[in-house]
C-alpha cells in the first residue's frame, strides 16, 4: 500500500499549521498583555516607605482576653491580704490558670492507647467545662444568655413554618404578592437610606467608571506640572487665554527637547505670548517626571498640552 502524497499539499498543510500555531501563541500572548490602567499618584521615597512600614515602639500590644485579665489580675493583687478565703473560691472557679492544665492533660492522655474511649470522652467534657468558668463572668453570662435566647426562637420558627405554610400557600390567593411580581419599578425607589442605596459612595455610583479614569499617569503628570505653573495675570478675562504646548519626553522622564509653543489664544497677544513662556518654564522647571511608567513610554513619548487660566479669578 503506497499512498501518493502530494509534496506541495504536505508543505502547504505544514506551513498552515505553523502559521496558525504561531498566530495562536503570539496573539493569545499579546492579548494578555493588558497595560496597567491605574497608577498611584503619590510618589514615595524609600525613606517614606520604611517610615510607613516601621512599627511603633510604644504601640499597643494585642490583648487576647481583655475581660479575663481584668477579673484575674486586678482583684487578687489589690485584695490579697484581707479576703483570701472569699477570693480563693472565685479564683478557683474563674481563674485563667485551670484552662492550661486541662489542655495539657488531654494532650498527654491522648497518646495513651490503653484508656481508650471512656477517658477521651470525659476529657472533652472537662475541656468544655473549663471554658465554661468564664460564664460566671457577668459580661460573658450576659452574652451567653443572649445567645441562648436567640437560637430558641429560631428553632421554633424553623420548626413551625414547615407544617402550616404548605396548606396556606395553596389555598390563599395573596394579591399583594402578585402585585409585587408585576411591579417592574426600580427597587431603589423604596425608602432606604443613601448608605444602603450606594454603599460605595466615595467611589462614585455603582455603574460609574471614574475609578478607571483617575489615577493614571496623566493625573500625576498634570499635578506635577501644575505645581510649577504660575502665570502672573490678574485680569478678569483670564479664562480666555490658552496656550498649546507640545513636549517630547525621554524614557527617564526628562524633556527630550525644549517645549514647543504651538499656539496661543487670548484677548492680548503679548499676554498670551508671556503665558506661553510661563508654561514652557513650568514644564522645564518640574522635570524630571520619573514617575511616568516606562512600560507605557509610547503613550507619553510625545505629550500635547494646553495651559489655561480657567477659574483663576
Amino acid at each position, binding site marked *: 500500500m503506497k499512498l501518493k502524497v502530494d509534496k506541495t499539499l504536505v508543505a502547504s498543510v505544514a506551513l498552515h499549521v505553523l502559521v496558525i500555531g504561531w498566530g495562536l501563541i503570539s496573539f493569545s500572548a499579546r492579548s494578555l498583555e493588558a497595560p496597567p490602567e491605574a497608577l498611584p499618584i503619590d510618589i514615595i521615597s524609600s525613606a517614606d516607605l520604611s517610615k510607613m512600614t516601621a512599627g511603633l515602639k510604644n504601640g499597643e500590644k494585642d490583648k487576647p482576653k481583655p475581660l479575663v485579665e481584668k477579673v484575674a489580675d486586678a482583684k487578687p493583687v489589690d485584695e490579697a491580704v484581707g479576703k483570701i478565703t472569699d477570693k480563693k473560691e472565685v479564683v478557683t472557679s474563674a481563674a485563667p490558670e485551670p484552662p492550661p492544665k486541662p489542655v495539657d492533660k488531654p494532650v498527654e492522655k491522648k497518646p495513651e492507647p490503653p484508656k481508650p474511649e471512656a477517658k477521651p470522652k470525659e476529657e472533652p467534657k472537662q475541656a468544655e467545662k473549663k471554658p465554661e468558668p468564664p460564664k460566671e463572668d457577668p459580661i460573658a453570662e450576659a452574652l451567653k444568655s443572649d445567645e441562648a435566647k436567640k437560637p430558641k426562637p429560631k428553632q421554633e420558627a424553623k420548626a413551625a413554618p414547615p407544617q402550616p405554610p404548605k396548606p396556606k400557600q395553596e389555598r390563599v390567593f395573596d394579591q399583594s404578592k402578585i402585585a409585587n411580581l408585576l411591579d417592574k419599578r426600580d427597587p431603589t425607589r423604596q425608602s432606604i437610606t443613601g448608605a444602603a442605596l450606594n454603599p460605595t459612595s466615595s467611589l462614585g455610583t455603582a455603574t460609574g467608571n471614574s475609578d478607571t479614569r483617575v489615577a493614571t499617569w496623566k493625573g500625576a503628570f498634570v499635578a506635577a506640572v501644575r505645581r510649577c505653573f504660575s502665570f*502672573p495675570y490678574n485680569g478678569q478675562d483670564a479664562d480666555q487665554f490658552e496656550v498649546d504646548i507640545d513636549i517630547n519626553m525621554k524614557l527617564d522622564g526628562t524633556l527630550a527637547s525644549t517645549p514647543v509653543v504651538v499656539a496661543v489664544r487670548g484677548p492680548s497677544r503679548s499676554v498670551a505670548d508671556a503665558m506661553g513662556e510661563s508654561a514652557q518654564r513650568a514644564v522645564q522647571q518640574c522635570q524630571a517626571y520619573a514617575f511616568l511608567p516606562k512600560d507605557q513610554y509610547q503613550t507619553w513619548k510625545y505629550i500635547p498640552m494646553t495651559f489655561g487660566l480657567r477659574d483663576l479669578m
Partner: protein
Amino acid sequence: MSDLIKPIVPMSNVLTRRTFMVATGSALAAWGAAPALAQRIRIDPDAFQPLPIAIPNFVPGSPQDAQVGGDVAGVITNNLKRSGLFAPIDQAAFIERITNIDVAPQFQNWKTINAQALVTGRMTRQGDGRLKAEFRLWDVASGQQLTGQQYFTAPEYWRRIAHIISDQIYERLTGEKGYFDSRVVFVDETGPSERRVKRLALMDQDGANVRYLTKGADLVLTPRFSPSTQEITYMEFGQGDPKVYLYNIETGQREIVGNFPGMSFSPRFSPDGQRIIMSLQQGANSNLFVMDLRSKSTTRLTDTPAIDTSPSYAPDGSRICFESDRGGKPQIYVMPAAGGQAQRISFGDGTYSTPVWSPRGDYIAFTKQGGGQFAIGIMKTDGSGERILTSGFHNEGPTFSPNGRVLMFFRDPGGTSGPSLFTVDVSGRNEQRVPTPGFASDPAWSPLLS
C-alpha cells in the same frame, strides 16, 4: 507599534499579503496614536499664585556703590511684591552670591530655591559723576536671558531707575506694560478734623519722594493728572465760588480754567490733554461742559434739570461716562464725547458715583453706596460684569494705574482719624495701604513717565 509589525513581515511570502499586513499595521499604529494626538492634556492653575523671583543686591562697580546697589534691589523687590503678581524670594535663602553679572549664574542654585526668574544687576558710578545701572533678567528653568538693559542717570535719580527696571521686568514676564515709573497726586491732610489743612502733594506710586504743590491756605479737591503733559487740574475753594485750576508741575505756575459764573468742579483731562471736561453749577442743577485749553472755547454737553457730574473720558476719547441723578438717584451714564443720548449702565442696588474709565478701556471703576457701606468696584463699559473690589465705611475716589491693572482709592474711617490711600487689584486681591506722611485723600494716578 513597530514591534507589532516586525514579527509579521518575515512570515509572509506574498507581496500582496505583506503589503496588506504592513498597511494594517500602519493603520493600527495610527489608530493607537490618534487619541494621544487628539487629546491635549489640560492644565489650569488651582489658584492664583504669584511668580517666585530672586532679586539679589546689584553688584557694586566700586565699593562706594554698594549702598545704591542694595537700595535699587530693594525698590525693585518692593515694587514687584506690592504688585501682587510676584513673590520675591527672601535674600537669606539665596545659595549663590552674584559677583559678576557678565557671567551666567549657576542656575541650579536658583532652581533649588524654586526661583522661576532671576534679576542680576550692577551699579557703577562713572567718571563724569553719573550713575550707570545695568540689569539682566534670567529664565531660571532654561538658563536664557529674557531681557537686559543699561541706563545712565544722575545719582539722585537712582530710585527712578529702579522703577524703570521694575517696569521692564513686569512687562517681560506678564506681557503687559508696568506702572511703577509713575506718580500720584493726592490731597495731603494735616491738623485736627475741625481745622484740617489740605495741600496738593505729589509722590512716587510707592509713596516715596513726597513733595507739596500748594501751601494749604485754600481748600483743594479732586486733583487730576493730565495724560500727556506734566500738568494737574484741580478744584480750589478760594475767596468766592470754588473754581477749576490748571497747575504745571514743572514750572509751578497755575491758572484758572475759564471764568464761569457759579461753581465749577469735577475737572478731568481729555486723553490728548488738550481739553478739560467739568461740571458747572446752574441753580440747583449742574451740567457738563468741555473747554478747549488752546482756544478757551467752551461746549455744553448736557442740559438736564439734574445734577450731572464726575465726567471721565474713554481712552480713545469717543465717549464719556458720568454720574447723574436724572433718574431719581445717582447712577452712571455713558454718552458720546460730543454730547447726545446718554445711556444708563448701572442698575444695582444703591447709588453709584465717581465713575472713572480705565486707561485700557475695558472697565469703569466707581464708588457704590448702599446699606451704610461704601464700596469700590468695576464694571464693563456696558454695565455688565459688576465686581466689588473692596467694601466698608467710606471708601471713595478710585483711580486707575497707567496699565489699568490696579486701583488706588482712599478710605476714611471717620471720627478723629483721617483718610488713607489704598491700592487693590482689578481682581479684588492684594489690597495694600500706600504709605503717606499724613492723612491722604483724592488720589489721581499719573500716566507712565517714560
